[in-house]
């Protein structure tokens, strides 16, 4: 990591370590789950140039699987989260094979349509309990000795999951794999002419992104003890796009900043009902028209250092 990035990472870590002293921990855990979700999404759009409009299907599916595993099969939380993540990765494998066949705008439409299919499946499938969702999922005991019903144990677990996922994505972006991915975003034809099998790289990025979005969704289900249709609906796919766009597409810390802002806004505007949707739409329009670099992108531009 460069110096600027090390400082930014330190600030982020310090924030999530100290913030629960003044802020509600459940709210912060929600922020971290969404931040990880957005980081996974950003891996595709920010570094691969692929706009997925169906990422809710990975978040939601993983949530359902881990909630079902923890509640019905009685799995310990670590296994439930692992199963959820694997389910999302498997779904990413199948949908990726289909979606990767088309580019740009088509890719966005296909992922959106596929996630709508998953939504209707979850609406009808008996194990998801339709509109009710899977409620009162037990948090269980992690590795057999850490009781997650203790809020601080749960908080520490989410923090570890989030930081691990974040560092994994950082590593992937700065590996040779990530460099090839960036070259595909910049100029796919040239990457092909250099001998790279670009379809395979995009496919791998898609599956990795799906798995990490699943990790976020599975963890979220354990934290909130709930898996519901909200997490598979297309509005959730739109929300992760918004978080990433506002924070800064293609920046490393952008999705985290975006998640903090958007989740805070939703928390405070929740009683205003549909105005939240209007506010989200307005932020979308402003970001696209005048603020395309996003929060962290603007800071990085000002400092002339990548963040």
């Amino acid at each position: 990591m460069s110096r600027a990035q090390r400082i930014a990472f330190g600030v982020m870590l310090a924030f999530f370590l100290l913030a629960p002293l003044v802020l509600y921990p459940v709210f912060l855990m929600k922020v971290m789950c969404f931040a990880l979700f957005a980081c996974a999404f950003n891996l595709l759009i920010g570094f691969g140039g692929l706009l997925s409009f169906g990422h809710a299907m990975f978040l939601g599916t993983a949530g359902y699987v881990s909630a079902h595993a923890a509640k019905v099969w009685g799995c310990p939380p670590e296994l439930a989260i692992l199963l959820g993540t694997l389910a999302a990765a498997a779904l990413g494998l199948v949908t990726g094979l289909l979606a990767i066949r088309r580019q740009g705008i088509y890719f966005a439409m296909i992922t959106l349509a596929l996630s709508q299919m998953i939504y209707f499946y979850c609406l009808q499938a008996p194990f998801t309990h339709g509109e009710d969702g899977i409620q009162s999922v037990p948090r269980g005991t992690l590795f057999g000795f850490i009781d997650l019903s203790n809020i601080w144990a749960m908080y520490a677990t989410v923090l570890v999951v989030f930081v691990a996922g974040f560092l994994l994505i950082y590593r992937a972006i700065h590996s040779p794999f990530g460099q090839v991915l960036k070259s595909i975003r910049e100029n796919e034809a040239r990457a092909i002419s250099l001998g790279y099998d670009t379809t395979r790289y995009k496919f791998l990025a898609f599956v990795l992104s799906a798995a990490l979005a699943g990790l976020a969704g599975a963890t979220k289900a354990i934290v909130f003890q709930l898996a519901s249709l909200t997490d598979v609906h297309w509005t959730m796919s739109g929300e992760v796009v918004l978080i990433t766009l506002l924070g800064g597409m293609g920046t490393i810390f952008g999705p985290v900043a975006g998640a903090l802002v958007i989740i805070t806004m939703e928390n405070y505007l929740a009683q205003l009902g549909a105005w939240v949707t209007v506010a989200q739409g307005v932020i979308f329009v402003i970001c696209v028209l005048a603020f395309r670099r996003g929060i962290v992108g603007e800071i990085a531009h000002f400092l002339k250092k990548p963040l």
Partner: protein
Amino acid sequence: MTEIFGIPTQALFGQLLIGLINGSFYALLSLGLAVIFGLLNIINFTHGAQYMLGAFCAYLLLNKTGVGYWWSLLLAPLIVGALGMLIERLMLKRLYKLDHLYGLLLTFGLALVIQGVFRNEYGTSGQPYAMPAELAGGRNLGFMFLPNYRAWVIATSVAVCLGTWFVIEKTKLGSYLRAATENPALVQAFGINVPRMITLTYGFGAALAAFAGVMAAPIYQVNPQMGADLIIVVFAVVVIGGMGSIMGSIVTGFGLGIIEGLTKVFYPEASNTVIFVIMAIVLAVRPAGLFGAQK
């Protein structure tokens, strides 16, 4: 009562009719998307909201000013089309030099704003809209009962679709449009005002969505969310058909509506998902879509 494959014909034809009605809306909306995409190279996510706006225009015109269905059918597309041109001039215009994905994000944001505002005002329940008295009732065709209004919707949307196809493929104006799709700079060099053409095209696409919305109002009720889920199905229709051809999107729209209707009869559990499954199969077999140009 006669049966086909163990299904009463009454039910079979009833669902086929519903399929044709849905297909009419798929065709009208995917046609509008294809026309806009052809010239602007953006996918208009606001299309579903514009469809909903059309229905609300008709509803408000009736309840606030007493303007009936037939005038709404003319006025709502004009109002929504004008609004669309405003959006193009003020916002979309700034994005043409950027990645096309920004157009998608902008129109998605606009759709959220429009739908959110209407949901605040009218909630999520539907507002009833009476069908015009001239088209009340129906006729018995011997094998099924055909409500007049539904026959009108199917016939009108076929006519509008074919009219649009004719204008784009067979007239001078259409040839300018197709030329500008291929090479806008060259067409502009010939003295044709391409930016104005783009504005008018977007306005026309939006008007088409509003027209569909007015026609849908008596059938589905007027609901702020009516366009949101529909537009995703229409996206799948567009992917299946491929956006290369106008006729392709019309045929695919009607065809998928009918398939969806038949699924409701034979395997109702899958009726919500059948179009997406077909999309997955088409992508696996023929990625460019049924009517799209293979690269």
